[in-house]
């Protein structure tokens, strides 16, 4: 297994480990750690992503504080000059205090990087060696406040994704759709989330989005006649401005997990409070089957109490050091990824593995569904980003020993069958080794009961 982590002093560490390695045990095997990039306290790594660049897989895109995006080749040893290790750089606008709120790679081949000021850069045509990299940028209006989360839709046209969702402090999730007018990309706000209803005491629920994920969603069906709308109330009235249908999973700094369906309402169709502290990371567990056509909830219950019809499992971590798995179908946590002693600042869920790094200076690798620890590696620094480069263990192929010449001679000899011997014996002459050898297994002795024999009591 191979992982890359970014830390708070600007280093990238590539860690090669195998199942069973726990470096906190003295007798355990050691993982191989190679550090890239010079330590710099002002350029902490804030996000990382794996992508295919110029025909080569496993290139790491690294976004650090200050808005610098670097594409790093982890196969080049750090002994080589830095120009050989870094294949491409892109500087986002803003000063040294620019914070990266998202760096991702969509399935349609777009690398995007977003800053807290609302600037997003979309890089395309980098996978093939022949084409030149195209960069499209757009500044989304922040309205005086910073964004803290970004989500990008997987579909694209003309080098930009179909839709982008942004959210921040006191700024609920908003979706912008792209359209091309006369060869020029235009962005239009099509949907804006509405805050949940006030609490029983009539207090407003604070808004501070921390993560946004686009869930799979099929195009909306033709609107049914008004009388046929199931349920009651305005919750089911479709939002008029959207041209597409979107589903979002959103976590907040006030520890909410919310699911939105733009075809149903502007308010969340599902909301719950996961813990008491801000949610830092949120992932949809890779093994979760998602049905884009089926509705998320029945719509008969309030979002605060309803369950989802689909089994959606979310991997999340909070600021208090909780790292676990949550099911929206049962509205219950499925279990925790045990062991971390500090908050998990970044996590990755790929295939059957879930990896987390954070304040306790360890890389934790877990079985996704079983939640058992697969590997644990001490990395010396506080990890702020993690990606999985290779989720499989290296299998050592042992070449079979060549048979010696004598064995070959024996193999060449023909076996004499029973029929040739005659005499009515069932077994003819030949190798009876298997029949003669009986396997004796030593019986395991029972472990003695602790405390020794019963002692005589003096009354």
């Amino acid at each position, binding site marked *: 297994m191979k992982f890359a982590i970014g830390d708070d002093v600007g280093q990238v560490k590539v860690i090669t480990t195998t199942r069973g390695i726990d470096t906190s045990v003295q007798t355990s095997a050691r993982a191989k750690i190679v550090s890239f990039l010079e330590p710099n306290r002002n350029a902490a790594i804030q996000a990382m992503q794996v992508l295919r660049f110029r025909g080569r897989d496993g290139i790491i895109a690294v976004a650090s504080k200050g808005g610098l995006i670097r594409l790093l080749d982890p196969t080049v040893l750090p002994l080589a000059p830095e120009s050989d290790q870094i294949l491409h750089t892109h500087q986002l606008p803003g000063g040294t205090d620019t914070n990266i709120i998202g760096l991702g790679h969509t399935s349609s081949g777009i690398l995007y990087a977003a800053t807290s000021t609302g600037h997003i850069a979309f890089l395309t045509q980098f996978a093939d060696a022949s084409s030149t990299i195209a960069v499209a940028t757009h500044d989304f209006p922040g309205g005086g406040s910073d964004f803290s989360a970004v989500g990008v839709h997987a579909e694209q046209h003309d080098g930009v994704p179909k839709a982008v969702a942004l959210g921040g402090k006191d700024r609920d999730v908003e979706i912008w759709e792209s359209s091309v007018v006369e060869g020029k990309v235009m962005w239009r706000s099509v949907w804006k989330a509405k805050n949940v209803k006030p609490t029983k005491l009539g207090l407003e629920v604070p808004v501070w989005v921390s993560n946004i994920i686009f869930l799979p969603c099929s195009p909306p069906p033709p609107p049914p006649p008004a009388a046929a709308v199931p349920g009651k109330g305005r919750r089911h009235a479709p939002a008029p401005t959207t041209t597409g249908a979107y589903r979002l999973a959103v976590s907040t700094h006030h520890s909410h997990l919310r699911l939105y369906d733009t075809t149903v309402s502007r308010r969340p169709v599902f909301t719950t409070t996961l813990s008491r502290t801000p949610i830092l990371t949120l992932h949809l567990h890779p093994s979760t089957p998602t049905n884009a056509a089926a509705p998320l909830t029945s719509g008969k219950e309030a979002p605060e109490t309803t369950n989802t019809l689909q089994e959606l499992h979310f991997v999340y971590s909070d600021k208090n050091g909780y790292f676990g798995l949550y099911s929206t179908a049962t509205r219950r946590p499925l279990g925790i990824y045990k062991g971390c002693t500090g908050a998990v600042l970044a996590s990755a869920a790929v295939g059957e593995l879930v990896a987390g790094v954070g*304040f306790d200076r360890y890389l934790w690798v877990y079985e996704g569904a079983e939640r058992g620890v697969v590997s644990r590696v001490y990395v*010396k*620094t506080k990890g702020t980003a993690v990606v999985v480069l290779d989720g499989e263990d290296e299998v050592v192929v042992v070449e079979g020993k060549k048979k010696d010449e004598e064995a070959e001679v024996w193999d060449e000899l023909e076996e004499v069958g029973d029929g040739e011997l005659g005499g009515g014996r069932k077994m003819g002459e030949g190798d009876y080794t298997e029949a003669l050898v009986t396997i004796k297994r030593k019986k395991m002795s029972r472990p003695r009961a602790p405390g020794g024999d019963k002692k005589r009591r003096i009354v």
Partner: protein
Amino acid sequence: MARTVKKTTTSQNSSRTFNIPNKLHRQSHNVRIKSALASQKRSERFERKKAEARDPSLREKRIKTNIPATIERKRVWDERVEGAIPGRRETAIEAAAAEAAASSPPKKQKKKRSSDDMDTDSDADSESESEEEDDEKPKEPEPETPEQIEARLLAAREKEQAAKADSEETQALFPTLLTTPAAEKTSYPVPRILITTSRNCHVHQPAEDLTMLFPNATYIPRGRPGTHAHSIKEICTYAATPTTTDADGSPREPYTHVLVANEDRKILNALTIIVLPAGPTFHFSLTNYTPAKHIRGHGNPTSHIPELILNNFLTPLGRVTASLFQSMFPRQPEIRGRQVVTLHNQRDFIFLRRHRYVFRDRREGEKPVGYGLEDGGKDGGNGSNGMEGDVKVGLQELGPRFTLKLRRVERGVKDGVEWEWKGGMDKDRKKFQL
């Protein structure tokens, strides 16, 4: 010759203690056994002393082999501690055994590295080490393969990178520990500490004492609820970005630390230290607070900047904690004051003491400086030869004294837990966090 006393046990099978029915007889029997054992032990000790006076090598040998099995010495291997854990019993015993084996010439011993000393990440180093040869003629070392050279260079680079990362992390956390002053300033930042108390605190003296302990510290009583109630976050904002001016009209310097002394029933019980302007926040529980006036023979402190001794902070968390205290004292101590503040970490408890020292002549009958501190000595050894001449150091405690235990480290100003003490951490008594 001492009497030989049969060692008794408290086992139910062999001891008479459990077979004596009369309570008074049983008690006197136990007292007899106890005193017999004590006198036996005492006479053994006197005899040993006499024998060692005749032959000092016996004492050296005993000290080397008889290492007390304290919890600190039995500290378990910890990958977070760079290199070996100092003063480990296993390591000392192995070293003594190796020395004994080396002194017996005929049998050749293979060089054995202590498992504790193994640097986990320098695999390349261990690979490149050639083992001792059996032949009398030492063979020339085989030339390294390109892979070995590469591995060695990589290991060296990793080590260098880790040292740089460590330094960068410390400087990022504690601005007063910057190794190079910021571009706009020519001098290093000097720590300025704002001391306040918990809400509704009516005891001011301990906080006043703390202003005497930390240089450049000011005590500002916590505002009363209603008129001047401020949260810790608000206090930190005001302290980091002052808008007022001094009496002479110059703008106020920002504070570098906020220290909140928490009291319960008029006794200090916790300290919260916040590094300004952007954290981190440290929470310590505080026990055994003894003000200076309760210390017998205490001296009075002067306003000189003290020297600082930070002892036994080994893990990354321990080093961050040590850096916190380092960042609270100005870098250049005033040696003239002969004052020293000691923060000694032992079993995750941090003992704070303040002393004044003086160098004086050795009096007759006094042991020389460094007695017992020779390598392998009962106090672990500090590289001295145990006989440092006729100068002694006199100490006078200034106070206050107290014990701290780290409970929580938060990122920023009370903004998310980085590390928190949990009861389960003390389950294995031989594993420590600092």
